[in-house]
């Protein structure tokens, strides 16, 4: 079975570095994008199954990226990894709306470290394997 691919998006290189090393032992391929625009590039070139993105990024906000992914890559499972412990109002409402419509798989906080995120991503991969038809 072909390995699934997870794309991490954050504007902070060091955050990406920590994710990269936290996920080396996970049974899927990890891609790292520094910022939303780079993420869009990578999406075009790679088949991505799970997207993990920060919300506040200078070039494009995470929510805008999620909107794009939702319309162009509807099968990608979306996970929000935010630095906010207290989300600004529009972000909260957008996320709430998304979660209610099963469009955002989960919400994780950066401060909690990678262990929790690993669990969430694993579940996302599992749900991805269940929904996708097994290759013949």
């Amino acid at each position, binding site marked *: 079975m072909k390995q699934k691919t997870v794309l991490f998006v954050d504007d902070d290189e060091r955050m990406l570095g920590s994710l990269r090393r936290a996920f080396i032992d996970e049974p899927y391929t990890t891609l790292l994008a520094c910022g939303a625009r780079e993420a869009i590039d990578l999406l075009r070139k790679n088949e991505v199954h799970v997207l993990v993105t920060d919300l506040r990024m200078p070039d494009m906000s995470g929510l805008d990226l999620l909107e794009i992914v939702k319309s162009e890559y509807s099968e990608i499972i979306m996970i929000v990894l935010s630095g906010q412990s207290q989300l*600004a109002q529009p972000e909260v409402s957008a996320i709430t709306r998304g979660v209610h419509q099963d469009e955002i798989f989960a919400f994780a906080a*950066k401060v909690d470290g990678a262990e929790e995120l690993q669990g969430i991503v694993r579940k996302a991969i599992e749900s991805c394997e269940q929904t996708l038809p097994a290759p013949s």
Partner: protein
Amino acid sequence: MQNESDVAKRILVIDDTESIHADFRAVLTGSQADTTTLDAAEAAIFGDAPAEPSASAKTLYDLDSAFQGEEGLEKVQQALREERPYQLAFVDMRMPPGWDGLRTIEEIWRVDPNIQIVICTAYSDYSWDKIVGRLGHSDQLLILKKPFDNVEVEQLAGALTKKWFLARKAEARMTELEEAVRRRTEEIEAAQQELQQILSAATPLCVIDTDYDIRVINDTFCALFGLSIDEATGKKCHELMRTCKCHTPECPLQRVQNDPDLYQYEVSRENETGEETVCLATATPYFSMDYSEVVGVLVNFLNITERKKDEKAIAEANSKLEQANRELREMQSQMVQNEKLASIGQLAAGVAHEMNTPVGFVASNFQTLRSYMDKFTKLFALYEELAEVVDSGAKEERLAKMHEIRDFHERAKIDFIMGDIGDLFSDSKEGLERVTGIIQNLRDFSRIDQPQDVGEYDLNAGLKATLVVARNEVKYDADIQLDLSDVPLITCHSGQLNQVFLNLLINAAHAIKSQERENKGTIRVRTYDTDTHVVCELTDDGPGIPPAIISKVFDPFFTTKPPGKGTGLGLSVSYDIVVNKHKGQLSVESEMGQGTTFTVRLPKEQSILEDEKGARNEAEDRAVCR
């Protein structure tokens, strides 16, 4: 009044004997023409030859005759009617058939009590006692015994008419005197009445003598102290008006005695219902008639109860006002604090993000480090096992172990880990430094209203610190260009000024953000100094402020942000900090579509803050003492 010299002296002779009349006439007027026949009789009656009457007497007497008592009375009445009364009447005692002399005298006196009367009698018809018994004691009555002596008659006439005139004169004088006295009395009464009227209408006053007795009071005094005149009369002053000065050298009476000058003090008195009357008393010395000594004190009262009440009310109102003012000031400081909290709260999300990212990746790295360690431990164990089989084991065993190690090396991505571990440490170190830096800046920034915050302030350093705090809020919307010149240090509240700059920066960033533009905006921060001020200009290339509202931007609670987004206090608090607290200037210039410049000018000499510094030093001294 009839004057003696002007009028003839009138004498009435009442006698029933005709010849007697001639004799009188002869004696008193010198007219003997038709009396010569009577000479003999006259001689018989008068005894001696008639003496020559004095020339003056003869011309002065106006003699009338009546032959009966009744006729005499008529003549007297007639004379009174004519207002030419008789001065003197010679009345015979026996005058048959009519009234006798006494009756005649009684009747005459009844109508003319002033007339002088001589009773002529030859007989002792009545004793003197009887006469006095009938007529009463009178100095107007003389008895002439017959036979008459001419001289006696003349002397009687002269003396008694004279006496009559003198009596009239005395009477007139008396009347005059009485009139004068009456007039004087009237004048005095009028004056007294006038005085009384003035006194009763005058301000309340009293006179107290040196024995502390109340001597004079007026109606208004009684009204003021709720007393009747009777109640107040005869009282000692301290029985009516107690003051705290009674029985002390401050007693107004004693004071004016020692120093005859005006002296004012307050007196209060409670009535039965406990209502207090407060008066301003003015004590002036009360002098003796010749002004040689002070014999008492005159005290004048002015009812100041209402004034006192008003004063009290004003004082109360004043204290309420002060209280309100204090509360307002507290509210203002609360507002400033709230605004500070709001602006910090506004930043909290941004700062949290700024902190959460490094905290997140450091935490993650820490977790990864443990898995790295587990792998190293495992690898180390494998190498130990290898070391054992190197010495004692068979070749196959050694190869198997080597294979196992190589396999683990591969699986555990040891090469990656070896290459990464340096980055893991340096990344984590950088993350921790970032957190430390943010905390340091937050701490610097949050020191806002504390007095120890007053001190030397480097405007450029303050701006840089503020930029660190604001970075996350600003960096997605605007680039910041710094154009900082060397400026001298100034004395101020660094925390407060940082708050101002933070406000201005965030406002600029929000203004740019509100445009939803493609590219980031620019915020230019420029500092320079003039002769008197250090200046900071913050210019954004945002949408600008509409002219209609630019005058309101410093008003409290004025905001263009949606409800819940802005307190509307940021700029008003900034204005307060710059203008009121630092005697500086905060101005705004804006052009629609071009951008906005806020300019903060701070005086180089900050004398106003010296007081606070002094207060702080004192506080520190106290703290040391404790």
